[in-house]
């Protein structure tokens, strides 16, 4: 799964730390997601989309091998 958290974060002017605090996870988690090393749980994906005021599908995308 891919995501554009980094882009959305830039649009919303949030640092990794600020986004992490908003969805109550560690900064490591945001960093790992942006590096495509971690696929978040549905709950976390929904929370992140909510922060950006978007649908989950606008932030997270399936890849061909998913």
């Amino acid at each position, binding site marked *: 799964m891919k995501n554009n958290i980094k882009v959305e974060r830039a649009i919303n002017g949030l*640092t*990794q730390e600020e986004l992490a605090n908003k969805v*109550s*996870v*560690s*900064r*490591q*988690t945001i*960093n*790992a997601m942006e*590096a495509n090393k*971690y696929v*978040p*749980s549905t*709950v*976390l994906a929904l929370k992140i989309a909510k922060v950006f005021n978007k649908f989950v599908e606008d932030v997270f995308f399936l890849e061909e091998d998913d």
Partner: protein
Amino acid sequence: MPHKLLLPNKYKRIGWIIFIPSFILGLCIIIFGFESSWLNAKVFSIFPSQIFGDKKFFSTIPVNLTNTIVGTMFIIGCLLVGFTKEKNEDEYIAGIRLSSLLWAVFVNYLLLLLAFILIYDTAFLNVMIYNMFTVLLIFILRFNYILYKNAKSVSNEK
């Protein structure tokens, strides 16, 4: 997803305080055969030795408590270090913890398998002694290594 089986973070520090000295003492026991004579005591045992002496279940026997105390401290230390929440516990860290456990069990049994094939007789007794502690030890090493690596990659990025 908070995990119910984990202790609060404050116990981690206590865990390290118990873990480190007992690890060092354990190494001393292994390397020098160190035994404190003032730790000789009579203890209650539910299952006495079958090789020496009379077989009496639930009796008191004389032993040296050095191994018992260091081993107990080491296991308690390992449990506290390994099974307390991180300061910023979340689903990602929970995932790392689980995969570290899987990795530790796997590596531990690979090593045991090697030892099984390559070590025989009374020397194998040593393998059994180490093997009591290696799962927890490998788990703690692996888990903290991954956390350390992640923390480093986070601090590199802004």
